[in-house]
């Protein structure tokens, strides 16, 4: 009965997943800011995962010093998807600071593309627009429903897009249509990222943004294929980290036994 934890210290949220014998037994999410180190400790404490082996991933992965090991988010994400959706061939993750498209096979990375240079096409873009439009993320689904026609919003640059949205608002366009345009823009950007590696079905989408059905729909439209979302899309990377941690512990035990 070994317990292990995966800690995904992201730019916006820190996620912790605790596993025991190949099952997830607890998970928590806490805000990463203002201090990622504090957030890491808090997540572990609230998860009840203090004192057990921890493998870290995410932007702030090097900040938690008592870790067993660290891996990049891409590797952890692939491992996590291999666990929660083993049939997936492509994973799309829209995170707070970046977005990634990873081609996977049995929990391993085959190829990946990521956008980490520009806020367009990331969760940050949605955050900015949600603020400008005064529509909180939780209300996205109610506002950007199927009947609404999107207005075109540029996808090249968050700053340009923001002034564009302000312009559309002041021209008294309905916020619902603007929001739909924003979602189309973000997902269009992610879809073009996907073309770098080739999007192969089945496609799974992860990251906190996937709690919104409107985002998932826009993504699936942009990619031109259906997109499946696992039960806890925000925790997939942390789950992958926990799995890799379990594997590492097992390997260490085996090595010690020799």
């Amino acid at each position, binding site marked *: 009965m070994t317990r292990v934890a995966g800690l995904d210290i992201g730019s916006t949220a820190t996620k912790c997943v605790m596993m025991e014998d190949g099952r997830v037994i607890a998970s928590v999410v806490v805000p990463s800011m203002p201090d990622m180190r504090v957030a890491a400790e808090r997540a572990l404490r609230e998860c009840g995962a203090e004192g057990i082996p921890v493998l870290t991933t995410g932007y702030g992965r090097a900040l938690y010093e008592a870790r067993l*090991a*660290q*891996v*990049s*988010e*891409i*590797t952890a994400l692939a491992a996590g998807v291999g666990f929660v959706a083993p049939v997936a061939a492509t994973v799309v993750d829209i995170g707070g600071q*970046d977005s990634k498209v990873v081609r996977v096979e049995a929990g*391993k*990375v*085959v*190829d*990946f*593309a*990521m956008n*980490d*240079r520009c806020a367009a096409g990331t969760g940050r873009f949605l955050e900015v627009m949600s603020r400008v439009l005064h529509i909180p993320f939780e209300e996205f689904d109610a506002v950007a429903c199927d009947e609404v026609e999107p207005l075109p919003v540029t996808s090249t640059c968050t700053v340009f897009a923001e002034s564009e949205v302000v312009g559309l608002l002041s021209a008294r366009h309905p916020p619902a249509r603007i929001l739909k345009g924003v979602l189309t823009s973000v997902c269009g950007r992610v879809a073009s990222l996907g073309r*770098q590696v*080739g999007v192969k079905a089945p496609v799974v989408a992860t990251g906190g943004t996937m709690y919104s059905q409107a985002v998932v729909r826009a993504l699936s439209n942009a990619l031109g294929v259906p997109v499946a979302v696992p039960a806890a899309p925000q925790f997939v990377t942390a789950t992958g980290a926990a799995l890799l941690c379990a594997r590492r512990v097992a390997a260490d035990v085996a090595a010690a036994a020799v």
Partner: protein
Amino acid sequence: MIKLRANKRLQTTIRNQVLWTRFGSKIGRPVAWVTSGSPVEIVLAAGFIPFYPENHAAICAARGMSQDLAEQTEAEGYSRDLCSYFRVDVGSQISGRTPLGHLVPPDVILVSNNICGTVQNWFRVTAERFNVPLLFLDTPFNDAAPTEADVAYVREQLVHIAAEVARLGGRRVTEDRLSKVVLRSRDALELWAEVLAMAAERPAPFTSFDAFVHMAPIVSMRGTRRCISYYRALRDEVRERMKAGISSVPDERARVVWDNIAIWPVHKQLKKLFEQYHVSLVGDTYTSAWTVEHLEPEDPFTSLAKVYTDIILNHGAAHRVKVLSNMVRKFDATGFVLHSNRSCKRYSLGQFGVKTAVSSATGATGVVVEADMADPRSVSFEHLQQRLVPFFETLGASG
């Protein structure tokens, strides 16, 4: 990590070259500024001392002077989107600041368009600044290999250039003199090729991080005896390491090849990152551009025409796919890095297509990283790490 003894030697060699350029020009030897892809053998045979602005820009970048110099050029109205080697070198001309002490002004400038169009304008601007003649070599772009007509066309220009440099203060370039220089070039190129080829050994005794640094003499001194003795010593040292099984990175776990110029502003940091993940950078398309075959001392004009038309940047993407795929196989690599170099459009165009094609030809995994060879404002180490670490992990390497 055992350092190469040649690192010291390189410094001395470069210093001596700088001193020789200065001294030579003082005693009346004419100076020619040339591009990295121009037939330097001709100006050498005419008794000129060559100077390489591109190489100079790389030295400025490696010494951390590039941003300052680039800004000088930008202040004159040149766009930041232009090649950073251009901006750095011209910035040095404007400000007079250079790690070499001072620049020795040209008597003539020789430019060829086999590497890009930017360099053509860069050297034209430079010729205007110094008010000296500009000799221009036009090399037709290759679909596959240079045709007979291409070679004849370039050869004719070379003969003309030889006559011009003689008229502009040099000696007469006889076939005999030219053959001797060509032979010396060939010897150095062969030694350099030998050095690079040893990275195919496991573990690699020498990596492209070393090659990027030790390429300086092959670029700027080929055709001279000192260049040959430099590479003979380097070859011997690398051979020694190879025989002793000395690895360039500790405990090599993965091998990758590189496309495009080095990222000078973070060269050392990047080298460390590779070491930390036990990844050997075993080959690259850049330093190996100076390993051309078919440089023949018989009929040197024709041979030079062929070789200088056939260089990698004068080819399209299909050729790059071939070169990279061969390299992946030859060096037994499982991955390759494509540096999308903001400065060098000619080198960076079409890399996503190249990535897919090389992957399907070789089964190796590719990654594209965005940076710039010399402008630190367009380089983010954080970004490079973000891309390279998952790439390394995919290849089975870990930190």
